């Protein structure tokens, strides 16, 4: 490979690997193919395809499921005729009441706050790009939202909470009768829809919207 001059890199056909700083020449990719860094195998970019309307639909569906998933009980315990239920935030509060507020904050952040903020952030990003991109005020908001998107999506741990529900069910079946509530169903749907939304969403594509 010949050495590239600084002038040649001025166009957008070249990028750098963010973990090892290798210079990479961009090429057009077919959809659902991801370019990896040839030296350290970090994902670099993929085909910038995402349909705004598709994402909007997924995002609204997720928000609709988000509310019952957090308000309805995810687990019901029947023990000697008495019924105990718990929602996600009640679980966090129960731990906090014992004095373990670090754990409570971790649970609340990764299962309620971060997913909620992520969905709201994506929704407002889509709405701004669709209707209000020319207004400087909204461009500024979009910039801020995009900056924090990486952090929010890292804090979102719906899939792990999903598995945790099942682990708890199996652990407790030895002692009592356990039932999954309507909340579990809504939570599972929320998890699935968010999964598809995150597959559809491309941060780099969203940034490139700001360029033109």
């Amino acid at each position, binding site marked *: *490979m010949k*050495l*590239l*001059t*600084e002038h040649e*890199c001025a166009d957008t056909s070249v*990028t*750098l690997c*963010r*973990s*090892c*700083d*290798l*210079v990479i020449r961009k090429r057009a990719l077919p959809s659902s193919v991801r370019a990896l860094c*040839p*030296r*350290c*195998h*970090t994902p670099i970019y993929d085909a910038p395809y995402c349909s705004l309307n598709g994402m909007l639909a997924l995002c609204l569906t997720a928000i609709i499921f988000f509310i019952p998933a957090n308000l309805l009980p*995810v*687990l019901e*315990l029947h*023990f*000697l005729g*008495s019924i*105990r*239920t*718990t929602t996600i935030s009640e*679980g*966090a*509060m*129960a*731990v906090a009441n014992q004095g*373990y507020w*670090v*754990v409570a904050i*971790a*649970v609340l952040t990764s*299962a309620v706050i971060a997913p909620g903020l992520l969905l709201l952030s994506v929704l407002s990003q889509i709405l701004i790009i669709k209707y209000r991109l020319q207004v400087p005020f909204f461009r500024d908001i979009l*910039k801020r939202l*995009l*900056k924090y998107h*990486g952090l929010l999506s*890292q804090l979102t*741990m719906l899939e792990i909470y999903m*598995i*945790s*529900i099942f*682990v*708890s069910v*199996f*652990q*407790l079946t*030895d*002692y*009592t009768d356990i039932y999954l509530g309507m909340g579990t169903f809504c939570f599972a749907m929320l998890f699935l829809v968010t999964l598809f939304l995150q597959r559809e969403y491309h941060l*780099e594509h969203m*940034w490139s919207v*700001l*360029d033109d």
Partner: protein
Amino acid sequence: MTSPSEQPQRNQGKDLGLTLCPSCQQLMSHKATHCSRCGSTLAFRDYSSLQKSWALLITAAILLIPANIYPITIFTSQGQTRHDTIFTGITHLIDLNILPIAVILFTASILVPILKICGLTIYLLAISFRLPISKKRLMVGFHVIEWIGRWSMLDLFVISITAAVVNMGQLLDAKPGPAATAFALVILLTQIAAKVLDTRLLWDRLESQDDTNRNTESS
């Protein structure tokens, strides 16, 4: 022996005076201080990240000890109270013949944190002391660590669900134990330690060493 013309097989950004914006991946000149697209501060290389990462990792390694020694759940069943550490909790599950759950919990709450701390230690040692370890292998390990680290949260979620649903005094009761906070901090600190590290340092620092190794092998 090697002439400078044949040594750089691949260009690195620093040779061309280019750098990548850490938050929006915009390509910038290394002289710029702020990204033109998102306005965040640019750092050509973050040398202090090595120190931060070491500090966080050592703290996490120390916290791993109370996390494993102290009980993480306090379970009462018909008047009898059990104090379970992470390890005895898992052996108890094996006794109850719930092997798949025991395997999941063992992976998430013992294997992953230890692997993470050992892996990150090796990684940081390789950068700090220029150990001759294959960079490609280190980087693959780093990506695995970054991805798998979140799964340790599983144990904390399970504790919060059981503590909320199982509270019936002497008959049946579950409470978190003192290890829970330590364990939560281990997860948090190791995640930040991996996040904070500027991985480009690995590829800068080991360059000369790795190349000489390759040359001596080939000759």
